[in-house]
């Protein structure tokens, strides 16, 4: 059933005039918006919600997106009234907020093998940008301001390219070798005294572990470059390997992927950034740390998850790193998301985190073994990229919708023709994976016409993208005559 726009239910024009406390020339004349009652709004948004597929609707195997189940209780902790404080409060009056941030920095440092962490970046791409800015500041500080290139593998996430470009770097694209990994010869050719950094995902977007990672790290470091880890695929490695141990100098974490915070239909996420000691002075300001009068003196040097049952008595403070790049968010990032991530990590602990990766990898392998589409590259970890072969991958995805499941990411990475990039995550049961495989396989056997007509059982049928872009109508003001 069709749900009218709010503006189609009501438009009420309010004149500012009469009782305005401001002179006329400082105010607008009128405001025209829908005026609806609470019951009407409850129905509107309830109805809209019914036209959305969420993680509680079924499997969501979007490759590279790590669409895990979002534990309900994390919403409760983020909704605590004590979580609601103004960012300009005195440090003394928000020791709880600072302690949680400090503990989360500590957790993330341990998980990634990094020496220092900032929680400020509000999303993964923002984290990449922080990494790029930190690298730039580091090079500048060392008199290496001439470095003007960032190397990015062809198969990397689009944000890597864009973040490097936003940081003012020329992007050098790096091809894969025949096995789908970094081509060392090509890397060698690309590296130079112009290299500021190499950005890498590991496992890469094909789900393959970059086996030569130590060598790659050496090569990058040998020319004076930095190695950046894109945390999008970290859910493959928890408790098995750490970027810091592989030679990465800087990394971001996608808490809405690895740490199960809800994606919210596009955000908010959070993209904390971890760095090795050498880069810590360049991190965004301010950072949180245990005050020196206390027992703990840093954010990653305590040996165990202290005071498991409750708050500490440690005092925390904010400080500006010595050579900070400044700020990348008006305040301290997406706080409520960070609270959820903290709760998730504290719930799972070592064993839970390691098990999450174990089951994520098991699920990907099992699902791949059950589908009829070929998977050209392996051995893969938490995700795999199948090929739709003669079929159009985008059409395959549309048709999968008719089977009541969410399709994989399609047509990317381009190294696999008609790519179906699939990441089931650890939360799916064997039964669900079997059902998902059945959907893949049913579609694999269907003809092009059926696929082209798909979907047919969804709220909307196939939507015309071309006309949307050709004559964009981006607000209800442009629909006045339609309604």
């Amino acid at each position, binding site marked *: 059933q*069709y749900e009218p*726009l709010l503006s189609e239910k009501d438009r*009420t*024009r309010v004149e*500012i005039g009469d009782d305005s406390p*401001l002179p006329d020339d*400082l105010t*607008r*004349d009128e405001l025209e*918006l829908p005026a609806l009652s609470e019951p009407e*709004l409850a129905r509107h948004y309830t109805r809209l919600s019914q*036209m*959305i597929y*969420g993680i509680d609707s079924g499997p*969501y195997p979007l490759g590279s*997106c790590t669409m*895990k189940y979002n534990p309900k*209780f994390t919403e409760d902790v983020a909704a605590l009234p*004590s979580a609601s404080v*103004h960012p300009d409060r005195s440090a003394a009056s*928000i020791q*709880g*907020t600072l302690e949680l941030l400090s503990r989360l920095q500590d957790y993330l440092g341990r998980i990634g093998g990094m020496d220092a962490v900032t929680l400020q970046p*509000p*999303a993964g791409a923002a984290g990449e940008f922080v990494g790029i800015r930190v690298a730039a500041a580091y090079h500048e500080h060392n008199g290496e301001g001439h470095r003007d290139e960032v190397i990015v593998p062809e198969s990397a996430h*689009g944000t890597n390219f*864009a973040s490097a*470009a936003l*940081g003012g770097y020329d992007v050098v694209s790096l091809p894969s070798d025949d096995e789908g990994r970094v081509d060392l010869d090509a890397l060698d050719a690309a590296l130079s005294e112009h290299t500021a950094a190499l950005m890498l995902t590991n496992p890469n977007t094909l789900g393959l572990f970059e086996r030569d990672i130590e060598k790659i790290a050496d090569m990058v470091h040998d020319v004076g470059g930095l190695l950046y880890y894109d945390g999008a695929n970290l859910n493959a490695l928890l408790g098995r390997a750490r970027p810091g141990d*592989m030679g990465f100098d800087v990394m971001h974490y996608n808490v809405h992927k690895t740490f*199960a915070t809800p*994606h*919210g*239909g596009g*955000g908010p996420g959070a*993209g904390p950034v971890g760095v090795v000691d050498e880069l810590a002075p360049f991190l965004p300001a301010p950072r949180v740390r245990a005050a020196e009068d206390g027992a703990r003196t840093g954010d990653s040097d305590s040996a165990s998850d202290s005071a498991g*049952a409750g*708050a500490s008595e440690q005092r925390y403070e904010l400080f500006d790193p010595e050579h900070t*790049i400044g*700020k*990348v968010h008006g*305040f*301290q990032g*997406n*706080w409520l998301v960070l609270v959820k991530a903290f709760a998730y990590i504290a719930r*799972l602990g070592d064993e839970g985190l390691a*098990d999450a990766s174990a089951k994520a990898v098991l699920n990907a392998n099992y699902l791949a073994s059950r589908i009829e589409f070929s998977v050209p590259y392996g051995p893969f*970890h938490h995700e795999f990229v199948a090929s739709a072969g003669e079929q159009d991958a985008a059409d395959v995805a549309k048709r999968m919708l008719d089977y009541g499941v969410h399709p994989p*990411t399609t047509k990317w990475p381009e190294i696999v023709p008609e790519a179906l990039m699939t990441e089931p995550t650890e939360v799916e*049961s064997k039964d669900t994976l079997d059902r998902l495989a059945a959907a893949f396989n049913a579609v694999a056997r269907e003809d092009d016409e059926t696929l082209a*007509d798909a*979907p047919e059982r*969804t709220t*909307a049928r196939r*939507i015309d993208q071309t006309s949307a*872009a050709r004559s*964009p109508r*981006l*607000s209800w*003001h442009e629909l006045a005559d339609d309604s």
Partner: protein
Amino acid sequence: MNGAETRASGSPYAPHTADERDAMLEAVEADSITDLFDIPDAVRFSDEFGIDARTERETRRLVRSILGRNENLTELLGRGHYGYYVPSLVDHLADRSEFLTSYTQYQPEISQGFLQALFEYQSLLVELTGLEIANCSMYDAATALGEAATLADRVRDTSGHRILVPDLLREERRSTLENYVAGTDLIVEAYPTADGAIDVDELADAVDEDVVMLYAENPTVRGTIEERLDAASELATDADALFVLGSDPVALSLLQRPADVGADVVIGDASVLGLPTSYGMGLGLFACREDYLRQVPGRLVGVSEDATDRRAFTLTLQTREQHIRRERATSNICTNQAWVALRTAMHAAALGPNGLVDLAKRDVTRAENLAERLDDLVGVSAPVHDRHHIREFVAHVDQPAPAIAEDLETRGFAVHVVGKHELQCCVAGVPDTELDAFVAAFSEVVR
């Protein structure tokens, strides 16, 4: 055993029984899960993180215990982050898991509800700003300002270097802006203000053809309402610079419509509606003139038709975005603040046009009233600026401001120190009864 009272021996959210795990391993012809990991020994991690597992209940108690260290203060803070009461309706509806747990709407056929909500959000901003285009979110006001600068750099016909921002601008916004333009040839410069607002003469001196963008805020960070935006806009237009205005949905409900004063871009924090104080978590408002359609950063929801010719919503103009355009994208943004935008749209809808205008009007009168009451105290004069104010104002105190703020804090009130003898107080979201208590406390402190 999946009970929330049970400590997990693995992930409590991975459903595998031992039998299922074994059957799956058999299907993939592996002896153990470890065999599935293709990681060289040298980089295998064999240590522990040292993070304890907890039951759901213990985890909740832990977080409650930690956050319980936060003091319960009445916040008169403001300066870009506001604590308006968010109707319960917003929590209950936005928390429906279909909204909360879905991904970006790359499959619009099963995402119509979210797309429509975002389209309605965009429409709200179009109405509030009078500009033709609003995207469906940036991270916050500071990053939206950064994105506006890169937009200015892209769309300007001739090259230029200077971005002018008010000297009053929050340092945090300026710093973020400077990071956003660090990869360009742009530099950020402050123009002087007078008595808490644009000094048009000084500004005229500062503007030249090397200026690519002029930024102003209405209201200013000090709560003053600008009176010469049209003049500023004219200066920018004459220099072929973008005129970028910072504001927010509550202020925009009452103050001059940006389109009417010549704004090319409006940025700001839209989460003044939709979120409670949340330690600065925000929602970047970004609206602009139709001319920049192909250069807008961020996601846009548009209208189209489906195969049965029914109206349908979809993300559109995605060729601007990083996942397609890569290093030539209009921004690196991917995950944005969509769910906050949903909340903002819901809050605005709950208020309706009357409620929005009324809220903004009360923000003017209540700020005026509080300033008057403080002004009546000995050793206090408020407001410092001889301007109209909304939400907040600066007060002069004869005694040292930091000491007064500290004393107020011990009495349960948080205010900003903005100068040696200047405090800033904000009424937004503070109930009348608490303002009364604040005045009483203030009078004791300055006695």
